[in-house]
């Protein structure tokens, strides 16, 4: 029933793709999803100031060597997360929602693999819930 358990439950939904959590290794396997999930912060309080709801925010970077691979992995990621409701003991949870960030797919010019720059696109997610 901790915030860490909630984050772990969220990240466990991302399957079927290579996932790196918190840190990307020096020689990653492409394509991949890099995920960083925050501790759930307070989203709503009662009049007596007790915590009613918390919101978990997560950012996923979908990274590939081609635009097509980014789009394919992004689809898998979306299928795994959008609208899903993880089952985490101690929490009553809503559905995961993507948050529009309007950030386009871009080349990472600081990284070169076989003479080309990998492409990446960030996707942001939120999940609201209450501890029981």
């Amino acid at each position, binding site marked *: 029933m901790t915030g860490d358990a909630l984050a772990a439950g969220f990240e466990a939904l991302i399957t079927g793709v290579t996932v790196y959590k918190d*840190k*990307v290794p020096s020689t990653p396997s492409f394509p991949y999803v890099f995920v960083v999930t925050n501790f759930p912060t307070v989203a709503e309080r009662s009049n007596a100031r007790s915590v009613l709801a918390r919101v978990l925010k997560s*950012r996923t970077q979908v990274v590939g060597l081609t635009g097509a691979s980014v789009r394919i992995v992004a689809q898998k990621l979306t299928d795994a997360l959008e609208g899903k409701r993880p089952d985490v003991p101690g929490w009553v949870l809503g559905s995961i929602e993507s948050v529009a*960030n309007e950030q386009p797919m871009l080349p990472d010019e600081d990284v070169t693999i076989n003479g080309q720059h990998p*492409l990446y696109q*960030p996707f942001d997610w939120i999940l609201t819930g209450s501890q029981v």
Partner: protein
Amino acid sequence: MSDGTAELRAFATNLGKVAGSAVKDVDAVLKKGAQNIKNEMQADVSGSPHFKGMAGSITYDSHYLPGRARYVIGPDKGRRGGALGNIYYFGTSRGGGSGDIDKPLRSEEPRTMSALEALAERWAGQL
């Protein structure tokens, strides 16, 4: 004795006056809000040891359409350091993205909403 026609004409005249200045009034509120958001974005990035050089690239532009006022705020890629904006806010293929692009908007929202409510009350008093 009145049949209400004179009152209706006066109401329509006042409504026309309010409508005529509405976009301008709303624009003034939004412009102030855009300025505040820009200032907070600049202050936030100025506190970053790696990205403070892009603070001057954060600007706002107005986009007007008939009956509508809109502002776009953020790093301008045409200015020095502006190309770092997406890295500061969204990271790279290896993570990062320490800037919170929503924070200045969250700070400003109550102020702008309050100013718009005051504007609506002023309009109501003119009818």
